Structure formats: structure tokens, C-alpha cells
């Protein structure tokens, strides 16, 4: 019998559907990953399990008995605890007091000695590595240790089910390893663990089964993790059946480039934006792709004057540009549709009309409102967007659906006829139908010569919507590529954070250093080589491509090796470069690309087969599981 089972859970927040009949089961002794893109409903679902929110419909059963939690307290009593990034510890109390907090509320004298003994027994259960001093003040602990205290607190309550909501986001690699060890120990001890994360490699390293959510629905329920590849998982998270919703009149019909509108060079705005360069042209939709935390939103906010740039330069229409405030950016013809509509977009106490004219108010010079001046623009936009009629303009914006609200926020900028629109996750929490009309609208305004920069976590959306994609990874732009030359898998490989592609990177470093050549990670498709990473200083052994580039095979310096993809070393007739290509191993035989080593001269005493085997071994997913 399942430890926990949720069936057909539905939950709405106002007009937004967060969960539309999601089901989920958890067995004792398993680590069950809950994954999905932003807004897919994974947080909502885990908060339903932990009793923080109550579902509108559906049933929850624990040990086969139906339960209903009125609050987190009841869930805790039933043995369910959630561990989040922001821990719920009392920072000024000691570790011991935090672990035993529920006991502090009980009547009677406190038996400190027994409490200390119990706490130490719990710590012993987690293994020696968990070592936290019970006397330490929680405020003085690192985040990783605080999470351990949180877990201990859960264990002290005899919890059998622990939900980890993005626990590794603030952790260092070492702390992450430690946490994973603890999670495995707990699973082995019969606990049921839910692991919410968007880091794919963690899901593969840790979980037994995966449930994938998309738009509040389960698109893959309790699939054994080893039956999935990274690419399949990404496709499940972001893919959609509707492929022609991007309003693209065929990829070849892309309008020719206009003049460059915005040109960003080496933008530096710590901590997230480290070195970002890109250019967007009039009439172009540029996708800014990457994973959460790659610095995409921060890049937009820096351009728009919401965060200070500490380095780099921005040019607008060839003129040096730097906005100290959004107002300056707006008056220069920029617009920003922010990521979080509720906290950054809508003004809840304003009518639809005033929300629509908010940016007009910001851009307007005089002391009055001058709403009248925009009357004709508003009328035109209303019909263009299929927005409520004039008479509904005085209604409250919050009474409309998320998609409608987003259209109003979009219209807020279109009223000003901007030259450059920055859109941060413009379709988050928007239903498919409205989504498609937003895409059509963006196409329409791009056709009128507006340059658009669209940030999206939805890879399929980026590829479908954008003309060109700039991929950010850990605050650095890694490539700029026309969207019709890339697919979701390759985008994922480009976007992989440097930290999580660390293992591959380390292997490349070792290869390059030991053999004095250049080592690289590539994928070959359609006569092109896509290079995700390249390491090595031996310029004589340059294969003719670098990390982020995607030349045709014929344009590289090692065309023969790339064309033949033979098992052993291949020497180029022309340049004399010698290359060994080794397929990246994957359990399901899915294409993860190739690891290559190019040497300036043919090697004298190097056994290709042995080298390939050692690289393969280092890259085995199992190798990490054992090491960790």
C-alpha cells in the first residue's frame, strides 16, 4: 500500500488554475522527484501534501485512509513535514531547542538531559557526516547545516514523509552531496521522500521515481527514473502537443534583419549577471534561454534600470545608453513585462483602464493624467488584443483570468509604441488559448519593427517563438543561435549550468592537460557540430570551434574525424590534426553527444580504446552514484 496517495487534486487561486486534477503516489522507502517548469504546480502540490494549503477538490489518503489537513500543524501531526529553502527555524535558539521545539510547548518541566540524548541519537541516525553541534545557535550555522537541523526537527516529530522543496538551490556542491547522503539514509530507513527540484542531474542522481507536472496536470506519473533520459524529461517538462501555436508563417519566412536596436556588451551586474553580450535587431524576436538562476531576469532588469550595472556597456540605436531608473528606460522607448505578474505587474486597486495606462502615466511629462490622449491607442489595442470592451474598462483587473491580465500588462506597454520590449516569462500562468494569441501579438508587433527580447524557461516556447536564441548559463552568454538550428535537447546541453556540467568539464580538463591537446563536448547533427564546451590551451590543436559555436563540419579544422566518427584516432589529411571521438554514455542509448580530443600531432603511445574506456567510465552516471 502506498504511504501517501493524492488523487485528482484541483486548486485555483482566483482566476488562476494551479492544479487541474493532479494525482501522486509515494511509497515508503523511495525518493520521489516532483518536477516541472515554473508554474507547473509542483510547489502547490507539495504545499497541499504538507497541509499549508487546502485543495478545492480531490482526495488525499495516508496509509490508505483518507485524510484532510486543515493546516500544516495537522499534517505534521500525521507525520508529514516540508523542508524548504527558507527554513522555519528560530534563529536565536540553539540547535537543540530548535529540534525539540514541539517539546518546549508541552506542559511540565523540561528534561534537558533526555532532550540532548534524543537529539544526539537522531543525529547519529543521519550518519556521522551530519554532525551539527547541538549547542550551537542556529543563526551561526551555514544554510546546509540549517537544513539538517530542519530534517532533525522533522525526525524528532517521528515524521515518516519529508518533502524537500528545492533544497539544493542555496547549497554548495559539498553541502548538496551531504544532503543527498542523508536523504538516501532516510529512504533506506523506510521514510518516504518527495524531492522537488528543477535540476535534472540531481533528479537522476537521487530519485527512484519521477512525477512530471505541466500546467497543473500530471504528464508523467511515477515513472521509474532509470527509464527516462534527460532529454525525455525535459521534453515532458516543457513540451506541448500544440506545435503551431507560435504564429510563425514558416521558419524560412523570417523577416530580414533590421538595424541593431539594442546591443549589450559584457554586461556585469553581480551576483547573477557576470558577462552577458548580445544584440537584438529591429523586427526580431530574440529568445533569452537558460535555466532558473542563469541571470536572465536580472539581465533584463539591469537593461531596464531596475538594477545597477557594475560593468559593460549598452548601446541603444548605436548610442551609448544606461538607464538609472525605469522612467529613463521608458522614455528611451523600452518596455518591461516583468516575471511575476502579481507582485510586479498588476495594480490590484486600479481599474483595467488605469492598469492599462500605468506606463503612460510614468512616461507622461505634465502634472495631469492625459488619459484622453491615449484614447485612440487604447481603442486600437482593445480590438487588437480581444480585450474587454470599453464599458468593462472600469472593472477591477483582478476579476479577469491570468491570461487576460497579462494581455492588459502587455497593452500597458504597447500604448507607448515602444521600440524595444523586454518580456520576462510572458506566458507564465497563462492558458494555452491566450498563449497563442500572445504569440500572435508578439509576431505582429515585431513585424511592425519592434525589437523583442523574450525570457522563457519553456525551451519549446523559446524555440517556437524566437527568431534567434541567446543561451545564458551561470550569468554568461554561451551561444547565440538561430532557433531553427537547435532543438530542446541541444538547448538543454547549452543551458546546463557550468556547475552541473562540472563532471564533463573536469573530464575535458584532465584530457586536455594530460595529452596536451584540446578536449571538447559536442553534438553533431545535420552536418553541423554544436560545441557545448571546449578546454585546452594548445592553440595548434584547435579543432576549429569553441564552446557555444555551431559551425558546419566542413568549416572546422577536423572535418574528416567529424564526418567519419570512427572508433579510433582519425588524422586529417590537410592539417595533420589527430582526433579521437568518444560517445557520451547513457543508460538508454540516448544521444548525449560526443567527447573529443584533438592533438596537434599523431600520438605515439596512446591506446585509443583504453582512453575511450577510461573516459566512458568517468562519465558513467553510476560512477557518481557510487562516489556520492
Amino acid at each position: 500500500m502506498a504511504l501517501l496517495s493524492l488523487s485528482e487534486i484541483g486548486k485555483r487561486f482566483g482566476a488562476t488554475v494551479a492544479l487541474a486534477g493532479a494525482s501522486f503516489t509515494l511509497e515508503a522507502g523511495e525518493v520521489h522527484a516532483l518536477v516541472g517548469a515554473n508554474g507547473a504546480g509542483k510547489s502547490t502540490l507539495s504545499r497541499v501534501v504538507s497541509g499549508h494549503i487546502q485543495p478545492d477538490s480531490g482526495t488525499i489518503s495516508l496509509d490508505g485512509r483518507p485524510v484532510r489537513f486543515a493546516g500544516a500543524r495537522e499534517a505534521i501531526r500525521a507525520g508529514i513535514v516540508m523542508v524548504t529553502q527558507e527554513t522555519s527555524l528560530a534563529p536565536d535558539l540553539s540547535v537543540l531547542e530548535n529540534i525539540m521545539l514541539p517539546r518546549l510547548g508541552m506542559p511540565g518541566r523540561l528534561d534537558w538531559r533526555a532532550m540532548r540524548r534524543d537529539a544526539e541519537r537522531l543525529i547519529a541516525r543521519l550518519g556521522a557526516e551530519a554532525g551539527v553541534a547541538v549547542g550551537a545557535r542556529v543563526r551561526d550555522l551555514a544554510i546546509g547545516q540549517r537544513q539538517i537541523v530542519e530534517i532533525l526537527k522533522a525526525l524528532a516529530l517521528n515524521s515518516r514523509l519529508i518533502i524537500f522543496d528545492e533544497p539544493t538551490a542555496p547549497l554548495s556542491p559539498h553541502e548538496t552531496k551531504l544532503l543527498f547522503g542523508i536523504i538516501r539514509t532516510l529512504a533506506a530507513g523506510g521514510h518516504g521522500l518527495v524531492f522537488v527540484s528543477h535540476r535534472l542531474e540531481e533528479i537522476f542522481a537521487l530519485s527512484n521515481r519521477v512525477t512530471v507536472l505541466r500546467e497543473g496536470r500530471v504528464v508523467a506519473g511515477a515513472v521509474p527514473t532509470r527509464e527516462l533520459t534527460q532529454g525525455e524529461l525535459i521534453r515532458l517538462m516543457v513540451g506541448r502537443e500544440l506545435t503551431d501555436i507560435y504564429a510563425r508563417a514558416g521558419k524560412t519566412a523570417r523577416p530580414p534583419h533590421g538595424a541593431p536596436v539594442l546591443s549589450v556588451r559584457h554586461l556585469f551586474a553581480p551576483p547573477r549577471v557576470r558577462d552577458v553580450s548580445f544584440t537584438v535587431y529591429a523586427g526580431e524576436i530574440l529568445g533569452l534561454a537558460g535555466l532558473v538562476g542563469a541571470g536572465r531576469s536580472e539581465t533584463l532588469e539591469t537593461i531596464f534600470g531596475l538594477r545597477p550595472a557594475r560593468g559593460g556597456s549598452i548601446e541603444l540605436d548605436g548610442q551609448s545608453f544606461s538607464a538609472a531608473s525605469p522612467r529613463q528606460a521608458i522614455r528611451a522607448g523600452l518596455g518591461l513585462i516583468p516575471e511575476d505578474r502579481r507582485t510586479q505587474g498588476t495594480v490590484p486597486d486600479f481599474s483595467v483602464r488605469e492598469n492599462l495606462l500605468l506606463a503612460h502615466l510614468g512616461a507622461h511629462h505634465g502634472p495631469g493624467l492625459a488619459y484622453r490622449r491615449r484614447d485612440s491607442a487604447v481603442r486600437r489595442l482593445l480590438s487588437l488584443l480581444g480585450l474587454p470592451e470599453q464599458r468593462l474598462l472600469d472593472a477591477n483587473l483582478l476579476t479577469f483570468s491570468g491570461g487576460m491580465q497579462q494581455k492588459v500588462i502587455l497593452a500597458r506597454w504597447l500604448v507607448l509604441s515602444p521600440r524595444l520590449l523586454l518580456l520576462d516569462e510572458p506566458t507564465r500562468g497563462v492558458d494555452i488559448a491566450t498563449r497563442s494569441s500572445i504569440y500572435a501579438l508578439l509576431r505582429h508587433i515585431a513585424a511592425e519593427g519592434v525589437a523583442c527580447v523574450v525570457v522563457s524557461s519553456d525551451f519549446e516556447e523559446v524555440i517556437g517563438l524566437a527568431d534567434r536564441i541567446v543561451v545564458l548559463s551561470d550569468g554568461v552568454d554561451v551561444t547565440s543561435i538561430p532557433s531553427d538550428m537547435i532543438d530542446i535537447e541541444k538547448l538543454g546541453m547549452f543551458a546546463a549550468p557550468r556547475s552541473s556540467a562540472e563532471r564533463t568539464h573536469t573530464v575535458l580538463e584532465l584530457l586536455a592537460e594530460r595529452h596536451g591537446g584540446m578536449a571538447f563536448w559536442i553534438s553533431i547533427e545535420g552536418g553541423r557540430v554544436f560545441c557545448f564546451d571546449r578546454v585546452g590551451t594548445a592553440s595548434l590543436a584547435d579543432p576549429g570551434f569553441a564552446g557555444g559555436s555551431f559551425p558546419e563540419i566542413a568549416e572546422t579544422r577536423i572535418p574528416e574525424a567529424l564526418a567519419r566518427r570512427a572508433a579510433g584516432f582519425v588524422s586529417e589529411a590537410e592539417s595533420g590534426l589527430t582526433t579521437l571521438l568518444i560517445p557520451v554514455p547513457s543508460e538508454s542509448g540516448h544521444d548525449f553527444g560526443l567527447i573529443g580530443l584533438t592533438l596537434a600531432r599523431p600520438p605515439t603511445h596512446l591506446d585509443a580504446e583504453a582512453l575511450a574506456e577510461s573516459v566512458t567510465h568517468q562519465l558513467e552516471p553510476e560512477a557518481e552514484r557510487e562516489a556520492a
Partner: protein
Amino acid sequence: MSETAGASGRAAVRRGLGSRLLHLLATQLELRMLLVIIVVMAVLSLISPYFLTPKNLLNVMDQSVIAGMVALGQTLVILIGGIDLSVGSLIGVSAVALGLVFPKFGVPLGIVACLATGTALGLVNGVIISAGKVAPFVVTLGMMSVGRSMAYVLSGASSIGNIPDSLGSLTEDSLFGIPIDFMCLIVAYAIAWYFLTFAKGGRTLYAIGSNVEAARIAGLSINLWSIAAYVIAGLMSAVAAVFLTSKVLSIDPIGGAGAELNSIAAVVIGGASLFGGRGSIIGTLGGVFIMVFISNGLNLLNVSPYWQGTAIGSIIIAAVLIERLLSGGRSGA
């Protein structure tokens, strides 16, 4: 204004649609205030035959001026989601400034000094809150203490008398039977209403209180208008100080004590949300009248003044409860 609101209310009744009236009441804050005021006046006139006499009504107008001036500034501050606890002690310190200046430089310069003092201290509040990002409660609590202490220091802790008649006439004279100070109050509220409804600054105050991030991204001047709200609150305290001095013909460093809570009460009774973004200046004026009526009525009924606190306090809590019930649906995210 109030007549049209009443007329549309009557029209709704005639149509026999009680639900329509209820809807109007639920959506129109000003209408609701008007209804409450009419009910309060009706009850008081039934209980005391003296209530509706011209003399008592003049008395009521008189009493509402000072509270009303302070509540106007407080409304702007509460609209942006702030609070100003220093308005009472700013009345004291700006009145003392008036008292120090008029003997040497005359009444007009005295009034200028008074208004300048209130404005300057309001500016200090606003800058520290907006640029220093300190909680308004803390900053204005500190200013409350500083202002009171300054008033004592500057006045030598004694009251200032010998107020010239020219100042006293401000609250004595009337035009067409209406006291001049009350006319000033109505003009001030009319200007504030126009500003909050039709000026960029006014809409910016609402936007700041409703969603400051959205307002910032839309390019509105957040800092400028946040500071302006506190500056106007300081200025209105000084205006109240002028009228207070004119009325009691003496300057007491402790003058204006309690004005902070009374003004907050008026704003809250007037339907504003302490979280900002929601409220109206007409509502505040209604709140002021309700408070004055209640205390006036209790006086007429010879109820001990000690009971007034209980009455006003209960009304505040009831007003907020009713607002919460009426607007609960709208504020749900």
C-alpha cells in the same frame, strides 16, 4: 456632489431593486459614508432637539477643522501604505515656531515660520523613510518624540499668550454664515480630491500603496511622491497649528497631543486600508464628521467625556470590520 450621490441612491430604491442599492453601497465608499452620516445625524437629532440648531452645527463645523486638516495629510500617507505618528507633536512644535516669530516679525511671517517648520520636519520624515528605507512607524514614532521635545525646548516649557486679534479672527469670522476656517477645510479637501483623482501625483500615491513594484516598473516617481506624502502631512499639521492657535488664543507646547490617533481613526473610519492603495479623501472627511458628531452628541446627552474614548474606539473597530466584510472578495488574491 453629495446630492447627486443621494439622488442616484434614491433612484435605485425607486426601481425596487434592493440588490442594486446594496451593490452601489458595496462599491461606492463615499455613498456608504454619506449614509452613515445621515443615520448618525438622524439619530442624534431624534435624541437631542438641540443637535440640529444652527449654533450646534456651527460648533460641529468648528470642531471638525483641526481634526480634518490633520486627517487630510494622514490620508495621503496611509494611501501609500505608510503611517505618520508625528502629526500631533508637529502641531505643537510648529505652533511654538509661530509663537516665537510673531512678536518680532508679525503674524504673516509667524504663519510662514509655522508652515515651514511643519513642512521641513515632514520632509525629514519622508526622506528617512523613502531613501533610508526605515519603517514609517519607527521614523514617525521617533519624530513624535523629537517634535514634542523641541516644542518644550523652544517654548521654555511654558505657554505663549498675547495672540493678536488678527490671528484670532481666522476662526471668528464667517462668510455667508459659514465660518472661514470651515471654508478653508472644504477648499483643502476639494483640492486634495482633485489631486487624488485627476493628477499624476495622486494616482501615483494610490499605485504606490497598491503595488509599489508595478508602479516602479511603469516608471512612476516612487521616491518623490512617497516623500511628498509625508511633506504634505507635515504641512497640514502646521496648518492645523495655525487654526488651533487662532481658536484657543494661546500656544501650548503640548497642543495637538492625540491628533495622530484621531487622524488615523478618521482615515480608517473613512474606509482606507492601512496596507495602502485603498481609501478616499471624501471618506476621510466623512470619518472626521462622524467622529465629531459622536463626541458632540455625547456632550449634548451629558454623557461623561470619559466614555467618548469607548465610543470612538468601538466605531473604529466596527468601521474596519465592515470594510473588511465588504471588500473581502476584492482583496483575495
